[in-house]
């Protein structure tokens, strides 16, 4: 039983926004909606780091907890999806989400937001896999085709990884160990380090 997760390696992310573009392109997402975004901390300063963020498919998702119409569900792969036929566009999930993943096509006066849209882990929605309805509402269902999310597949530095949590864990572990071998690369400590990289 797989448990699908994203992992973004802050040491590798170069803020190229290719993941954002790939995602928008793959799912034909309208302007204003960004299922994925890259956040840069300390931009232009020492210790600058970037992270690519989207829905993290939490095990105990706050969005699902707070949804007044209970439109979220978790797939057998551990992916948190939602049913746009049920969503009423109230915006609660956006308040509750730690990562700011839920997006709305509009945010007009009198709370006209439209149906919530968020990262599906390229797994579509409740409709039949890659049916035209599913594609219109949620974008492509790559998982059903045996493919991983495009954002991770596209990532040129392999900073963004997507897949089974156990596999990602082992990759990450290996990276940490390798990085530890070089004192200069112990990046996160640049701030306190006497040696200016």
């Amino acid at each position, binding site marked *: 039983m797989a448990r699908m997760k994203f992992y973004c390696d802050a040491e590798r992310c170069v803020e190229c926004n290719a993941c*954002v573009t790939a995602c928008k392109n793959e799912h034909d997402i309208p302007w204003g909606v960004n299922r994925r975004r890259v956040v840069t*901390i300390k931009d232009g300063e020492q210790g600058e780091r970037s992270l690519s963020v989207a829905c993290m498919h939490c095990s105990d998702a706050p969005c699902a907890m707070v949804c007044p119409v*209970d439109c979220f569900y978790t797939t057998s792969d551990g992916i948190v999806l939602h049913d746009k036929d049920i969503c009423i566009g109230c915006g609660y999930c956006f308040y509750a*989400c*730690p990562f700011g993943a839920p997006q709305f096509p509009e945010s007009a*006066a009198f*709370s006209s937001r439209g149906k919530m849209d968020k990262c599906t882990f390229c797994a579509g929605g409740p409709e039949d896999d890659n049916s035209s309805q599913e594609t219109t509402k949620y974008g492509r269902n790559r998982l059903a085709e045996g493919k991983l999310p495009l954002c991770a597949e596209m990532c040129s530095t392999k900073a963004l990884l997507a897949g089974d949590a156990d596999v*990602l864990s082992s990759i990450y572990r290996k990276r940490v160990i390798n990085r530890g071998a070089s004192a200069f690369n112990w990046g996160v400590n640049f701030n306190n380090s006497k040696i200016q990289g």
Partner: protein
Amino acid sequence: MLDSFRSSILYDVLKLTSTLLLVFMLTAPATAGPGPPKRPDFPQGVSTTNPGNDLWREVRQRDLPVTGTSQVKGVDSGVLINVEGDRWARFRIDNPVRHAPTLLVAVVLVLLAFYVLRGKVGIEGGLSGRMVFRFTDYERSLHWCLAIVFLFLAITGLILLLGRTLMIPLFGHHLFSLIASASKEGHNLFGPIFLVSLLLMLVSFARRNIYEKGDLTWLLKGGGIVGKGHVSGGFFNMGEKSWYWLVILVGLAISISGLILVFPNFGQGRVIMMVSNVVHVFGAIVLIAVSIGHMYLGSIGTEGSSEGMKSGYVDINWAEAHHDRWAKTCHENDEILSAEEFARLQGNPIDSGDATTGAAND
């Protein structure tokens, strides 16, 4: 007077509840209960570690600034971790969603018990039939407008708050979603009408609701419910004034927080939204609970009190029982109408039989 006794009981109940809720709120992250039941797709008990955990833990624990920048423009798009979101979500589930139904049912039960035990509070000597003018057409229209809009907002609001627990099991997800969408759109549309009515209410009634000297006595005597006999009151008595200011102040709080929630286009952040939501829900539940008491007293609770908001005239005996100081000025100004005169002003004179019922029936 009974009115505000009720409201004072409710006050206590509400104070207690709100204190409890505050305690819950502060301890919510620690005592957070389990989330809503998951759909059975995902096997429970399978525990895997998210490789990202370490990273996010680091981001949160290190003294890095939480706000960064992003090429993506949007509300809070530079915020990496929204720390309050989960707390708010749990608070919402654990407090208003869990306890509001209990509170509202309790209020209804208390009133029912009171009605059974004490019955309708009458007036010594009964109603005289002689009437005195109290509220203009405009004032009554405004009151009922506020009442209708309030009821609509209360019902749609409660659907959005409690529907998931109470209605989805009955209607299923799709039908409930339909109801919830309608409720949401209606709620957002009628909210500003509530605010406008409230402000007009403030303008029309504020002067008569300023607390006066005798009001403290009224409060000390418990609105006449504890001891025997009615307590002195002016045009509005202490209980009515308290209800009025509760409506105005809590109503304004609800309205302002509602406006913050309903205009996402101004780009206020999530924290402001969540605080507004808490204020909104709390204020609403308080107001709904107390309004049930108000409705009880205005209808079956007290003899003769509904007439003032229907015809605009009240029985002089009712006025003397509940608003003796005002009734005195009415006597002084010779404003009391006979039953015949009152009937004539209502367009159904007592003497001229059947035909005057007029147009209403065809």
